[in-house]
């Protein structure tokens, strides 16, 4: 069977499974629609949370980012997992005890103010909608690259599938499809990783393979990789930081706080039966996330070595007669000259996978020195030795441009894995994008139907009508998400930073103070949220333009790029959170205490006893 057919079968089978779950798990009450009935097992919820959390970016892009950044890429690994410790200890169990359907409802009730709840709804909608654009484009990308249909068709199909289980099943349908999607995506991610680790190190566990010696040698894989990339003028893989040390510190912190404050993740913990379940469920979620997150650095480093080995024979990887990659221990140990003429791959002899990916534009070759060979190196190097060698060899600049996404998408092809593995990766990428999109849609529609329709406009709405409102807002949200996926605003690439910045600077501090500071009043909380949000948006917009409109950036007004201690706008959320806390406590000091019953409410939230199923009463 050819690749195309197998891919259709694999993706078709996964979609049939999701539809089957949709038919089985329809939501008949608001409790099922918003909280999946409220008695999801902690391990099940952990698995659903992992799929909810791991997006198209985690699946497709992260390993490539790490491959490019080296050690500095660890900020994504630590940032996007460390947030679960904060979520597990500071937010999830207490919000579960509070026992309401949505995050804005907690903020509104705790700070006894419709205004606070509305600010929270706005933050939630902005963060979730910007985040969902990336998922929809991810669906389009996966379809167009693997199934040969246009990206638009892919997005329509993705919308149709999500519609089937999210509109009719609500949180209940989403929970069980997310479990299925987790299984698909984790298999798709780990199977190629196991193969590539075996080929390079003989160790089947990628996490151990990354710390092992290259097959047949006593040279550690990371040592060899460091050697190859520094010889070619790149920064050393295991030590290159992402900007300054301070920037890396703040960036990691921002991702952690942002992760803990993302509403679509938090609300998954409203589906478990008990406070103690919310605690353990966060641990299970991280176990399932870690399976992918500890594999990603192995995939990144190994695929990077493989890529260099493909285009430069001095690395010591050879293409066997059947086309598969094989280690040549002698060359690996010898540290052969990567600048030797014969070492660079002749373009006409490039492997098939390169030809295939050239068609997509993700891989580009330009023969700058006209020698018919591919020279892939850092032509902007500050390493004088590497530069002199490149000049002496007659290299006229880097000739190969590689999009970071290829690291995961083409990995099975580079390692010459069977077609079913390539097809599995397609299904996995779609599962990652769809599961996160559904979680975000759930956060959006519940904020609209529960916090706005019921909370603000029509408090007397019957349960039946609220359920209907939920389903309608879900359907509308899908259409909007699809529209934004089809016509991505020019700023789409910068928006994930915005989502994390908003979650970190507004939602996380407000929720945390709501639990941990009994005396925090509505004036303090609202001033804090607005100040944190404002300063973060100000810094991001200064770099990227007001609402990301080109030409409206004002970075010179704040003293040039990264003016605040060299911190990049993506890393700024933690600073926004700090501002939020400081302003909140300052305003709280000069305004009057929250009413007695609110303080009692906080005391009740802090103890597990008396936890009941989540409900929608305002």
């Amino acid at each position, binding site marked *: 069977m050819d690749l195309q057919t197998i891919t259709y079968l694999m993706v078709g089978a996964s979609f049939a499974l999701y539809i089957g779950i949709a038919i089985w798990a329809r939501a008949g009450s608001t409790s099922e629609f918003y909280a999946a009935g409220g008695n999801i097992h902690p391990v099940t919820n952990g698995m659903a949370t992992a799929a909810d959390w791991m997006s198209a970016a985690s699946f497709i892009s992260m390993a490539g980012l790490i491959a490019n950044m080296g*050690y500095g890429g660890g900020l994504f690994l*630590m940032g996007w997992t*460390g947030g679960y*410790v904060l979520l597990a200890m500071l937010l999830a169990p207490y919000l579960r005890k509070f026992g309401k359907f949505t995050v804005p409802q907690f903020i509104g009730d705790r700070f006894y103010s419709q205004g606070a709840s509305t600010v929270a709804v706005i933050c939630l909608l902005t963060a979730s909608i910007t985040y969902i654009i990336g998922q929809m484009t991810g669906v389009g990308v996966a379809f167009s690259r693997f199934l040969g249909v246009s990206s638009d068709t892919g997005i329509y199909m993705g919308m149709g599938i999500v519609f089937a289980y999210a509109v009719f099943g609500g949180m209940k349908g989403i929970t069980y499809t997310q479990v299925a999607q987790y299984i698909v995506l984790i298999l798709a991610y780990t199977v190629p990783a196991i193969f590539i680790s075996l080929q390079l190190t003989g160790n089947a566990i990628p996490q151990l393979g*990354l710390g092992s010696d290259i097959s047949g040698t006593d040279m550690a894989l990371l040592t060899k990789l460091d050697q190859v990339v520094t010889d070619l003028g790149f920064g050393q893989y*295991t030590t290159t930081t992402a900007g300054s040390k301070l920037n890396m510190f703040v960036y990691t912190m921002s991702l952690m706080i942002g992760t803990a404050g993302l509403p679509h993740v938090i609300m998954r913990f409203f589906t478990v039966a008990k406070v103690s379940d919310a605690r353990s469920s966060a*641990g299970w979620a991280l176990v399932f996330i870690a399976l992918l997150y500890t594999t990603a650095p192995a995939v990144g480093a190994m695929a990077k070595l493989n890529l260099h080995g493909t285009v430069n024979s001095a690395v010591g990887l050879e293409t066997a007669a059947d086309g598969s990659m094989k280690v040549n221990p002698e060359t690996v140990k010898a540290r052969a000259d990567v600048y030797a003429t014969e070492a660079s791959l002749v373009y006409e002899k490039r492997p098939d996978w390169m030809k295939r990916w050239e068609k997509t534009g993700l891989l580009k070759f330009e023969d700058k020195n006209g020698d018919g060979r591919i020279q892939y190196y850092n032509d902007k190097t500050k390493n004088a030795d590497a530069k002199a060698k490149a000049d002496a060899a007659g290299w006229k600049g880097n000739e190969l441009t590689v999009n970071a996404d290829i690291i995961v998408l083409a990995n099975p092809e580079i390692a010459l894995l069977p077609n079913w593995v390539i097809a599995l990766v397609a299904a996995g990428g779609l599962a990652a994008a769809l599961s996160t999109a559904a979680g975000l849609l759930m956060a959006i529609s519940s904020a609209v139907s529960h916090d706005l329709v019921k909370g603000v406009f029509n408090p007397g709405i019957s349960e039946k009508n609220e359920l209907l409102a939920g389903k309608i807002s879900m359907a509308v949200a899908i259409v909007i998400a699809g529209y934004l996926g089809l016509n991505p605003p020019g700023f789409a690439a910068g928006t994930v930073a915005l989502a994390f910045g908003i979650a970190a600077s507004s939602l996380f501090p407000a929720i945390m103070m709501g639990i941990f500071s009994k005396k925090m009043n509505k004036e303090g909380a609202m001033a804090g949220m607005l100040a944190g949000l404002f300063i973060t948006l100000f810094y991001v917009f200064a770099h990227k333009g007001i609402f990301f409109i080109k030409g409206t950036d004002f970075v010179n007004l704040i003293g040039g790029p990264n003016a605040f201690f060299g911190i990049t706008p993506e890393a700024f959320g933690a600073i926004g959170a700090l501002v939020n806390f400081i302003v909140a406590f300052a305003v709280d000091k000069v305004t009057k205490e929250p009413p007695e019953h609110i303080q009692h409410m906080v005391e009740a939230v802090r103890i597990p*006893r008396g936890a009941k199923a989540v409900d929608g009463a305002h």
Partner: protein
Amino acid sequence: MEDQGKAYWSATLGLLGKILAVWFVFSFGTGILFVEAMNGISLGGYPLGFWFAHQGAIYIFIALIFYYGKAMGDLDRKFDVHED
């Protein structure tokens, strides 16, 4: 009951403080602030600081959450505020 509630909360905060200290040391500390010193030590083929940033911190996070769940369960029962 009032005092019992206060004692439970301060025990909770103490536990959180301890766990957050470990959380900080093994991510921001060994993975970022002191990574050079850590890289002087090898763990198999891994420089140790690099390993913390790309692997170790994540394993420690998992252990911390499960430890937290267990320790909080013990506190809940000790102060008689556990769920039925």
